[in-house]
């Protein structure tokens, strides 16, 4: 059984991809079959993922690799394959499980949409591609699936094709991630050139193993930074984060699956996967490439958290929250806490999907309302949504003890505090923790507590097909913390390939109280600031946000997302537009002119040939025929038709012949 799953690891990715094709070939009216097929595909993937996960528990530092040759050129061969190690195994289970919950949720959320079948086809396609990213053993194969995931994201963000804003957002997402992917591709080329292989693990010859790394030498830093460009684009780090909030134009299940739990996690996963490249030649656990990762991560984390405080769209707050949390994960990876970062990735996958699905439930219940200032008092109207959302909020804010997010955040803070290079990231991350608690509290107060306002007047709880996944994810968020506590750090040890011990004393750590205090401060601040705003009456015009009242300039700055989109518009996009215009001019006048000029040559030649034909050849032929006819007329004039003339000619000829013979003799 074990060997079977190692050899057939590709099935986990292939089954959803195949199902996606099957769904696309279904007719218009087979909605139930489409949804059922997609869910079955996801269940199969989940079952296989669990099958793959179980053997990895048997021994520490498990790794099963299956490589094969894709094609050969000359005497070189391009080899690809798949790998199963703790990192891949937990990612597989998380992606499959979260995906399954979201698929079930989508059955309810997209029930009235007429493109139901296309949605499930795209979702399945995405799922297959994402699962492929985590099991790829070759950087090239990973890149292929990476791009497929980007394609799926584009298709799903722009799912409602009749909306120009959605189409623009999809284009923005694709192009922004593409910019990052250019760096990724360059890094991949450099890596292949230096080490001769793109396989990660290949019995000692892989590029992540000691022999391959030795061949890279000092260029490992640059290769790592180039590959990090891809992660920056995909995971929405500063400066390529601008596509993530716009990606909220897509349906909410898409936001939950792609832009919270899985696709954006691919960037963090990539850094974790090629971590040996980053940490090559580390002194005290610090290398230049890892330092870059830390600073970009902490910048992103803090910046996004600040912007989130001033947003009014329920999904945008969550989108910026995702960006901030991804920054936090990058910080964790950068300071050396790879296991901590991945644990937070997994926990984040669960609770962020939960929060997005909860937001989707709220939007569905409020009949399409997105603005939190128009909601309120949903606590009594949508109790299940409220409870699960509260669980998600507490997990995200980092409330410790029962909520997984708290424990993972602990680990990250612990790792960041012990970074030898600088303590600044630690303090900034602490600030980020406070801000996270603050904006989540703000959101909960505006949406669920206080009085009902315009949007929530006719709100109703979502159907069971939507609330069941919410409950499932909330339970995951809570019970996941069982393997995360310091008392029994099972996941931490599993990821690092160590043995684990159960010690209840480890539960209480000094950092624990620091983060508890911070979270409490953030929640308290939120409650103090927004309580009155939440209680605002439905008949009055929306009041100013308390922060806006206190610091209008700063609030406007944050509300407009630090004017970064506008900055990019004026610089990068303007430059691209100019290039496009120049190219267009060149195409229309220069290249087209050349082509028309060459065409003119052809025309001239044609005219010349036609004249030669008309005046030369035709005339010649006409003259010849005229001459022949004239000659004929001449000859026929000699034929008088009279016998005696002919006889006379014969006689004269005979005479001439006789004289000739006589003369000869």
């Amino acid at each position: 059984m074990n060997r079977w799953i190692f050899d057939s690891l590709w099935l986990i990715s292939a089954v959803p991809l195949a199902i996606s094709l099957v769904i696309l070939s279904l007719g218009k009216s087979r909605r139930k079959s489409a949804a059922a097929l997609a869910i079955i595909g996801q269940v199969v993937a989940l079952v296989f993922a669990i099958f793959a996960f179980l053997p990895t528990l048997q021994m520490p530092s498990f790794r099963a690799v299956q490589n094969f040759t894709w094609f050969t050129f000359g005497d070189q061969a391009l080899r690809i394959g798949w790998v199963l190690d703790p990192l891949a195994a937990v990612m597989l289970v998380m992606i499959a499980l979260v995906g399954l919950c979201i698929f079930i949720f989508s059955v309810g959320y997209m029930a009235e949409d007429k493109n139901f079948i296309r949605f499930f086809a795209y979702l399945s396609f995405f799922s297959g591609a994402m699962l492929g990213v985590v099991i790829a053993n070759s950087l090239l194969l990973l890149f292929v699936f990476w791009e497929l995931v980007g394609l799926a994201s584009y298709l799903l963000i722009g799912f409602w094709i009749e909306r120009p804003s959605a189409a623009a957002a999809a284009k923005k997402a694709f192009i922004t991630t593409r910019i990052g992917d250019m760096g990724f591709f360059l890094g991949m080329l450099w890596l292949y050139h230096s080490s001769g292989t793109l396989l990660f693990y290949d019995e000692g010859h892989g590029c992540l193993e000691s022999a391959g790394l030795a061949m890279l030498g000092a260029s490992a830093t640059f290769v790592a930074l180039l590959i990090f460009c891809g992660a920056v684009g995909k995971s929405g780090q500063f400066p390529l984060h601008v596509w993530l909030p716009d990606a909220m134009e897509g349906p909410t299940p898409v936001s939950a699956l792609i832009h919270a739990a899985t696709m954006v996690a691919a960037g963090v996963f990539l850094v974790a996967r090629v971590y040996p490249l980053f940490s090559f030649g580390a002194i005290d656990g610090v290398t230049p490439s890892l330092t870059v990762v830390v600073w970009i991560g902490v910048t992103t984390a803090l910046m996004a958290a600040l912007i989130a405080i001033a947003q009014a769209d329920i999904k945008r707050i969550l989108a910026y929250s995702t960006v901030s949390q991804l920054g936090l994960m990058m910080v964790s990876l950068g300071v050396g806490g790879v296991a901590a970062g991945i644990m937070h990735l997994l926990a984040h996958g669960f609770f962020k999907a939960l929060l997005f699905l909860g937001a989707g439930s709220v939007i569905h219940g409020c009949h399409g309302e997105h603005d939190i200032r128009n909601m309120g008092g949903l606590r009594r109207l949508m109790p299940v949504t409220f409870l699960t959302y509260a669980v998600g909020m507490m997990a995200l804010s980092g409330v410790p003890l029962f909520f997984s997010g708290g424990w993972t955040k602990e680990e990250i803070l612990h790792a960041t505090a012990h970074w030898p290079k600088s303590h600044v990231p630690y303090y900034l991350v602490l600030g980020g923790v406070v801000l996270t608690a603050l904006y989540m509290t703000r959101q909960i107060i505006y949406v669920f507590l206080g009085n009902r306002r315009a949007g929530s007047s006719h709100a109703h709880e979502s159907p069971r097909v939507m609330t069941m996944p919410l409950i499932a994810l909330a339970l995951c968020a809570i019970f996941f913390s069982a393997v995360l506590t310091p008392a029994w750090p099972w996941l931490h040890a599993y990821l690092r390939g160590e043995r684990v011990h159960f010690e209840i004393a480890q539960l209480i750590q000094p950092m624990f109280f620091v983060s508890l205090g911070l979270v409490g401060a953030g929640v308290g601040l939120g409650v103090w600031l927004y309580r009155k705003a939440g209680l605002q009456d439905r008949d009055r015009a929306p009041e100013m946000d308390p922060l806006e009242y206190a610091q209008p300039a700063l609030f406007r700055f944050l509300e407009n997302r630090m004017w970064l989109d506008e900055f990019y518009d004026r610089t990068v996009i303007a430059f691209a537009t100019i290039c496009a215009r120049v190219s267009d001019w060149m195409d229309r006048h220069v290249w087209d002119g050349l082509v028309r000029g060459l065409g003119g040559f052809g025309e001239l030649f044609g005219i010349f040939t036609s004249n030669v034909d008309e005046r030369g050849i035709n005339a010649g032929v006409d003259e010849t025929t005229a001459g022949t006819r004239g000659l004929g007329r001449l000859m026929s004039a000699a034929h008088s038709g009279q016998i005696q003339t002919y006889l006379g000619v014969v006689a004269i000829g005979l005479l001439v012949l006789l004289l000739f013979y006589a003369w000869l003799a």
Partner: protein
Amino acid sequence: MTLTLQLFLIVSTALFCIGLLAALSRRHAIFILIGIEMMLAAANLNFIAFWRFSLDPHQPTGVMIAIFSIAIAAAEAAVGLALVISVYRHYRTTNVDELDQLKG
């Protein structure tokens, strides 16, 4: 005057030319036929002359040829007359100058 071969040849040549003249210059079709007969006669005379003055006049070779020739001339004259009659029936004229259907 001694009878030599040349005398006979001169006579046959003269006869031939007269016949040729008749065939070429007369307008009436019958007269052309007469001319052709005269040319045939001249040819016969030639044959007899060469036989008479040949090495072995006792073999009747020349006479045989002349007899064959006269018989064939007779047949050919019949055919020619048939042709003339047929042409006359169609064109109502024996004037060969008017028979120029093959004029080019």
